[in-house]
C-alpha cells in the first residue's frame, strides 16, 4: 500500500489473511467496551504493535490527526453525552463524571482503530492485501480492485497536485473567501481531475486486459504464503478475547 514500510518484523511476516482477520477481530474488540480503562488497555496493546512493527514513522505523519480525533472526541462526548449526574451545565452543554469517562473511552477507541489500521497498511503490501482477501474467499477481480484502490491513491494525489498548481499559475486563489466562495473555486479543478481519473482508469483497464487480467479459469500466484504457528496463535488469542468479551460481558 502507499504507506507500506519495508521491514522484517513479525507483523510483516504473518499470513495476509491473519492480518485481515486479525484487524477485523481487533476492531470488533474495541467496540465491545465503553469503559475508558478497557479502551486504554486495548490502545496500549495497539501502541505495542506500532512499536514492534516499525510503523511509528507513518504514525508521526498523521500524529496531528490522531491527537485531533482524540481531543475532539473527548470534548464533544463529554459535553453532549447525557449520562450520569451532571456537575456542571450551560445551555445544551453538560458535564458529568460518566460523560467524561465516556468521552475518553471514545477517544481511545477511535485512536486504537486508527492506529491499528495504520499498523496494517504499514506492514501489508497491496499484493498481500489482495492475496489475503482471496484467501478468505473473495473472487480475484474483487480483491484486486480493492487492493488497486490503495495503489492508485498516490498517483491520484500527484495528478491533483499538478492540476492545482496549473490553476494557481492562472491566478486561482483557493485560500481566500468564505466557504461557498471557496467551494465554487474548486470547479476549475474538478473537471481536469475527472478527465484524468477517467483517462487513467481507461488506460489502466487496457493495460490490465493486455496482461491477461480477464483470463478465465485458475490463476497461479507468484507470492505464496503459508500459515505458521504464530498465525494460529494470533488468531486464537484474538478470537478467544472476542468470545470471552462478547459472551461473558
Amino acid at each position: 500500500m502507499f504507506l507500506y514500510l519495508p521491514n522484517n518484523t513479525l507483523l510483516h511476516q504473518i499470513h495476509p489473511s491473519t492480518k485481515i482477520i486479525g484487524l477485523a477481530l481487533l476492531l470488533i474488540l474495541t467496540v465491545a467496551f465503553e469503559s475508558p480503562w478497557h479502551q486504554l488497555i486495548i490502545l496500549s496493546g495497539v501502541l505495542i504493535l506500532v512499536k514492534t512493527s516499525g510503523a511509528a514513522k507513518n504514525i508521526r505523519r498523521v500524529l496531528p490527526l490522531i491527537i485531533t480525533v482524540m481531543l475532539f472526541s473527548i470534548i464533544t462526548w463529554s459535553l453532549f453525552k447525557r449520562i450520569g449526574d451532571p456537575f456542571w451545565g450551560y445551555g445544551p452543554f453538560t458535564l458529568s463524571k460518566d460523560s467524561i469517562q465516556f468521552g475518553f473511552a471514545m477517544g481511545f477507541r477511535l485512536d486504537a482503530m486508527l492506529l491499528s489500521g495504520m499498523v496494517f497498511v504499514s506492514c501489508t503490501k497491496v499484493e498481500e492485501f489482495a492475496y489475503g482477501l482471496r484467501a478468505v474467499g473473495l473472487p480475484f477481480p474483487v480483491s484486486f480492485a480493492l487492493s488497486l484502490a490503495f495503489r492508485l491513491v498516490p498517483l491520484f494525489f500527484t495528478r491533483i497536485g499538478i492540476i492545482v498548481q496549473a490553476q494557481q499559475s492562472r491566478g486561482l486563489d483557493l485560500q481566500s473567501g468564505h466557504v461557498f466562495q471557496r467551494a465554487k473555486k474548486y470547479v476549475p479543478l474538478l473537471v481536469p481531475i475527472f478527465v484524468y481519473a477517467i483517462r487513467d482508469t481507461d488506460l489502466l483497464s487496457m493495460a490490465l486486459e493486455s496482461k491477461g487480467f480477464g483470463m478465465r479459469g485458475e490463476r497461479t500466484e507468484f507470492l505464496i504464503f503459508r500459515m505458521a504457528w504464530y498465525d494460529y496463535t494470533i488468531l486464537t488469542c484474538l478470537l478467544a478475547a472476542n468470545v470471552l468479551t462478547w459472551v461473558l460481558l
Partner: protein
Amino acid sequence: MTTGKTPSIILGFSGGDKLKTGSFLVNILTTLALHILELRNLSFTYRGTSDPALKQVTYTHNHGEFTVIMGATGAGKSTFCRCLNGLIPTFIKGDFQGHLKVTDLDPQEKHQVYELARRVGLVFQDFEAQLFSTNVELEAAFALENFAVPQEKMADRVQSALHQVGLTGFENRDPSTLSGGEKQRLAIASVLAGRPDVVVMDEPTTDLDPIGKRDIFALAKSLRNEIQGIILVEHETEHILNADRVLLMVNGAIINEGPPTTILSQPDYLEQHGVRPLQTTVLLQRLGLPTESLTISDAVSNIQAAGWRINEGACQSLEQTEVTTDKMNTVVRIQDLVHRYDQAKAAVDGVSLEVYQGEFVAVVGQNGCGKTTMVKHLNGLHKPTHGTVEILGKNTTEWTLSELGKRVGFVFQNPDHQIFANTILEEVSFGPQNYGLSKEETEKKVLHALDIVGLAGQEDQDPFSLTKGERQQLALASVLATDPDILILDEPTTGLDYHGQTAILQLIRQLHEAGRTIIIITHSMWVVAEYASRCIMMSQGKVVKDSSVRTCFEDRDLLESLHLESPEAVRIGQAFGVTVRSIEELITCLEK
C-alpha cells in the same frame, strides 16, 4: 521483407526422418510461419464517431522483423496497435471490419484479449498508468499469474525478462522510485515475461528524457534477436534507422511502406505528412545531392565528395551575428537557491543565475535533475528552502502568488491539466478574471491572446474538441491573456507531431521577437539549437553549464556526460569542424 532467420517453429522439424519425408510440407510451413501477423482490409470506426480510425489496412509481419510505424497525430497508429492484441474490438467497441490473423490462432473465431495478449504484448506510452505493483518483481510476474504459469517457473521467467531490459538487481524496488526510462523498461519487462511472439510498443519514448529514449531504442534493437517480432510507433526519425521496415500512416491508412532508406530519404514527403524529416536528408536535398545517405558519416562523405567545403569567413560572420542580450535589465535573479522536498536530497542545490529582459533561455538536463523544481520558484509555486529568488527586482516572498502569476506566466507540459471550461472564451478568460480585470479589459486581452495563437473566431468552441496541438495553443493563450513579462513553458512540444511542434515553436518565437522573456524546459535538443539563445544545463540539482547555445554545443564532452545528444545539424557541422545550430546556418557556411 524477410530477415533470413530460421523461424523457431520450424526447428522442431529438424529430425532427419521427418525432413526426408516432408521437405515439401516443411517448405509450406516455413512460408506460413514467416507471417506471424496478418491484417487484410482492416477497418475500424470507434463507437459514437462517423470517420473510420483505420481504413482498409493490409499488413503482414514477418518472423524476426522490426517494424516502425510513423505518422501525424490522428493517423491511426494507436488504433492499429490496439487491434493487434484484441483490445479492439473486444474491449474498445466500434465497427470492426476485415481479417486479422495472429500467429497460430484461427482467424475465423472470435478471440478474447487474453488469448491475443499471450501472443502480442502491448506496451503503452504512459508508463505511470500501466504499473500497479509495489515492487519490480511483482510487476513483471503479474501477467504470468494471469496466464496461469506454474509458480515454480515464474521466478526464472521474471528474472529473464528483467535481465533482458537491464533491470536485474531492481527486483525489490518500488516502481514509483524508478526513473522514467526505468519505468518504461519495467513496463516492457512485464510484457516480455509473458513471452509473447510479438511486442508492440505504442510511442514508448514520448515522455522520456534523452537517456531514457536511447535505452528504449537500444532495447528494441537487442530484442529483435530474442523474440519473433517488434512493432514500434515512433516520431523520432533518427532512432529508427535500425528498423527493417517503416510504415507511414495518414488518416487511418498505410500510405507507404518500405525499408528506412526508402521512406526516410524523402524529406518533403515526410514533412507533408506530419513527420519530422532527418536533418541529413534535408541538408542533402538543399545541396542538390541524392538523399539516400541517412547517417551523418555517409552524408558528410557525400557532401565532401561533391566538392562542398567550409567557408571560414561565412562561419565567423555567423558567430558575430549571435544575438547579444542587454544585460542591463535583470528580470530574474536567483541566488544560492536550494530546494528540498521533505528531508530528501536537495532537488535544487545551490543554483545562482540571472535572466535578462528579452532572453530566450532553454533549461536542459535529465529527468529529475531539478529543472522544473527550479523554474517553479519563479512564479511562486515553490518556496526556496534556502536562498532567494527575485522577479523584476523584488523577492518572490514579497509578491503575492496572484501578483507573481500575472507577471510570470507558466504553461504546463500537459494542457489537459488546466482545461475545464465549456468554451474557449471562458477558458482563456479564467486568468484575467482571477486577477480582477474588468470585463472590457478581459475581453480585449482574451481576443488578443486568441489572435496571437491563431484561435480567433473559435471563441464558442468546446476546448475538448480541439486537437492536442490546439489545446497546447489554448493553454498558451490562457497564460498570454494575463500579459506576463516572463513566459515559462515546460516541455511545450511533448506529445505533439511535427506540425504541432513547429506551430507552437513559431508562436513562442514570435512572442520572443515581440520582446517577451522566454524560459523553456525541453528534452528536444533541436528545439534548443534552433530557437533558444542561451542554454542552461542542469545535473543533480546544479547548473553545470550556462552559456550561449553555440558554446553549449561546442562542449561535446559535457553533453555526452549528461547523455544529451546534439541534433544532427550540429553533428554534421562538427564533422566539418564548425559548430552550427541549424541546417540553414550550415548551408551558409558551405561553399563549392
